[in-house]
């Protein structure tokens, strides 16, 4: 049944439905509804919640709970996600599954609490130290947050990889109708007995560890991770195409900005201008192929990347387009949000 859900609370309930029983967090705006919801909800379903002393501590609690084989989660917003990067790198290094939500705010530094997308580089290019990637999703509606959160735990378990779901204050705070999928039966979740360190008594040690002092051993692990990422790219890349069949002007945008671009596409089409949108749903792996394929279409005139940043994803768009067509950028910052009319004007003036 569809109900009216606030974005942050919908994510929390979707996680519970997905079998997440452990949440560790620290307050920061604009994601506070997630820990607040989890602080009572998890105890109802036999799980546990800790309000940690810091984001650093919270992500290490996730490391412990995930290492013991549980579906565990944390959430934060930009400055707090920076603090979690050490732990995320260790989680990647120890080959552990978990889900991390980043409701982005504007930066750098303490910045502001209004919507922004300035953490794209941090989310997709590593964030913490060393050669690793999170799988990164960028939903654009409350329902999509629910569906992706529900699936994120399966994806994390399947690849033993941290999954990051990014949104912004706008998406976390807005209310929309959404349906939460059915509660997962915990007995049907993946069996982690072969590696989870939860105090076995079979005489075989399970070790949760990211230290590899032998160069060849560490390089082999690096190779293993990147083979895993290739498989993830092949199987998990997601995007949405919007009015792209005949589009001459292609917006590329994710999250809440993609919704603004959709309004601009409709407005432009009502005026006879053929606009379309490619909306990456996974930011890592990045849907480069569809962008590259689109760039080869003879009637495509240009790409316009739209972000609430000074231009971060645009670098991946340029790499994917690879010089085949012009790639322009339009961005707003500081918590300012572009209007569809801004994008309509941009296309009409640049035609």
């Amino acid at each position, binding site marked *: 049944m569809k109900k009216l859900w606030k974005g942050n609370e919908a994510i929390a309930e979707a996680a519970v439905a997905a079998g997440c029983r*452990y949440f*560790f967090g620290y307050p920061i705006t604009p994601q506070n509804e997630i820990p607040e919801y989890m602080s009572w909800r998890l105890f109802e379903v036999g*799980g*546990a919640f*800790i309000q*940690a*002393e*810091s984001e*650093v*501590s*919270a992500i*290490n*609690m*996730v*490391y*412990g*709970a*995930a*290492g*013991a*084989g*549980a579906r*565990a989660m944390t959430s934060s917003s930009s400055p707090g996600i920076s603090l979690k990067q*050490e*732990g995320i790198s*260790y989680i990647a290094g*120890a080959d552990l599954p978990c889900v991390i939500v980043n409701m982005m705010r504007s930066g750098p530094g303490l910045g502001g609490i209004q919507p922004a997308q300035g953490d794209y580089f941090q989310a997709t290019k590593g964030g913490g130290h060393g050669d690793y990637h999170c799988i990164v999703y960028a939903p654009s509606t409350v329902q999509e947050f629910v569906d992706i959160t529900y699936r994120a735990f399966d994806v994390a378990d399947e690849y033993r990889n941290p999954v990051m779901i990014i949104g912004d204050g706008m998406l976390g705070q807005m209310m929309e109708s959404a349906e939460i999928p059915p509660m997962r039966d915990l007995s049907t979740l993946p069996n982690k007995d072969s590696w989870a*360190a*939860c*105090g*076995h*008594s079979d*005489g075989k*040690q*399970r*070790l*949760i*560890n*990211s*230290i590899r002092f032998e160069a060849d051993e560490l390089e082999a692990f690096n190779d293993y991770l990147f083979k895993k990422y290739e498989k993830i790219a092949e199987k998990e890349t997601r995007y949405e195409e919007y009015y792209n069949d005949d589009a001459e002007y292609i917006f590329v945008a994710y999250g809440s900005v993609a919704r603004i671009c959709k309004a601009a596409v409709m407005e432009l089409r009502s005026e006879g201008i053929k606009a379309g949108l490619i909306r990456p749903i996974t930011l890592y792996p990045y849907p480069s192929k569809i962008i590259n394929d689109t760039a080869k279409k003879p009637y495509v005139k240009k790409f316009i990347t739209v972000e609430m940043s000074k231009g971060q994803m645009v670098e991946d768009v340029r790499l994917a387009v690879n010089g085949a067509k012009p790639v322009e950028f339009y961005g707003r910052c500081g918590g300012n949000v572009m209007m569809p009319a801004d994008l309509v004007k941009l296309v009409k003036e640049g035609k």
Partner: protein
Amino acid sequence: MKIVATKPQMLTDAHMHYCPGCTHGIVHRLIAEVLEELGKTDNAIGIMPVGCAVFGYNYFKCDMYQAAHGRAPSVASGVRRVVNSDNIIFSYQGDGDLASIGMAETVHACMRGENITVIFINNQIYGMTGGQMAPTTMPGEKATTCIYGRDPKVYGNPVHMSEMLATLTGPAYIERVACFDVPHVRQAKAAIKKAFQIQMEKKGLTFIEVLANCPTNYHMTPLESMNFVKTKGCEFYPLGVYKDITKEENK
């Protein structure tokens, strides 16, 4: 022939990497002996730090975690939520790990009264990185980042962890012990055993501070370093029980 002493079954046959004369090996053995005596070797879970004990997982046969620097109490807290309450959980941390970078994690795990045992090796120096000043380096004690000796006016003051944590409500048992001679090794073993017993009774966090030596970075022979701990160390960091809720309960 009668066998009067063996290596604890809980320890592996791996060759320990600790320097000659270092007491890490003694404390490892004490933990293993105690868990064997308590019948808890099978389901114990250890969380190792960053520092000299970073490879500690090689020496224990139980399930182990290697935690980020200072974060072992947080990792242990996460594990504690998931596993059976009968599982023994211990973290094993040095002074840089526990009292410097991990101070917040240590204090808050104590405040929460996590049902875990923290083994704190206080050798007053960063051993693994080559002898830098620790949060526990004593006034006048030399280190590679205070080569003329720690002047509190320049480098700040050292911290007495056991005394400080004893002011909190959460911890159930706090004792500072040492390993510089046989009677003290036996006392250290008794303290570790009591700590695990209190954990088995689910009474809260137990904290054993072991006043340890570092002959390599003190630039001393093992014997000289033991004597240093026995004299100057114990003078500055007095041994003893700093908190014991079992005594308070019996009052």
